[in-house]
């Protein structure tokens, strides 16, 4: 098989320029965000079912969660029958 490096196989190392501490008074660790921030800054890794369009599925998520805005990352449209 061909040996082209995929963007998801690149490994990066974290290098330190200078040490500093962060004040717990501001912001949250992403995995510890409380409600409603957890939704406001959240993303769902959805397994799109066949049939409805990506747009329809996104509209359902909006309705289920009762939120104003949602958007999907890359259309997965149903195969057109022709």
């Amino acid at each position, binding site marked *: 098989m061909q040996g082209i490096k995929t963007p998801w196989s690149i490994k990066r190392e*974290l290098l330190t320029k200078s040490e*500093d501490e962060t004040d717990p008074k501001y912001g949250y660790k992403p995995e510890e965000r409380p409600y409603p921030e957890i939704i406001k*800054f959240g993303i769902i890794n959805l397994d799109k079912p066949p049939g409805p369009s990506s747009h329809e599925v996104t509209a359902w*998520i909006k309705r289920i969660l009762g939120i104003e805005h949602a958007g999907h*990352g890359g259309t997965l449209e149903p195969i057109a029958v022709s």
Partner: protein
Amino acid sequence: MTGVLPVALEEATKVIQALLRAGKEYIGVMKLHGDASEERIKEVFSEFTGKIYQRPPLRASVKRAIRVRTIYYLDALEIDGRNVLFKVGCEAGTYVRKLIHDIGKVLGCGAHMHELRRIRAGPFTEDESMVTLHDVLYLYDRWRETGNISMLRRFILPMEKALGLLPKVFIRDSAVDAICHGAHLTAPGITHIESGINPMDTVAIFTLKGEAVALGTAMATTEEMLKATHGIMVKTERVLMPRGTYPKLWR
């Protein structure tokens, strides 16, 4: 089509642009319209690996000029008569249906795509974090009933996950709010840098807590950023964090 569809909520919709530009992986079934040998199929698959030229299909929402896309790999997993189970890793904006159609033309017999499932969109894959619409309905109801936030955490990931494949630059608290107001990132604000960054690369700016602050364009290499004492290191392109999250420590 089925498979990985990241759905960003509220403020997180700002990270979608990073996902749209990210590579994808699909698994699908190609149906041949005539006979072709296994050897020939594999030969043509390898011809369609690397840089390919593709004219967007008629129904496409983009300009139909021929464009170049990179196919990272294209594997025939199983060949059963005229059905070929394939797996492909490709650059954002590749039309897989068109790819299969074009492969059919080169094979001579013609082909069309019968089924397709996306198994990767950038950093999102078919792993334990993936949920169905039913899971979303069920877990959201459980949260409403119990108030137990772990129900939300089981299906809502932090938006930072969407930036998982971008190189990261970490900054100190005192630099955060200026970036949120659109300022560019200068050398003194930086605490940590990931390796392999080159000028013009898209990078993600993070707080020391691991929160996404902004997307930007690198103005220097990782090594130059490590040494620099002044100057713009990253040009801020898209602010992700609301202003006022961190204190205003700049004039």
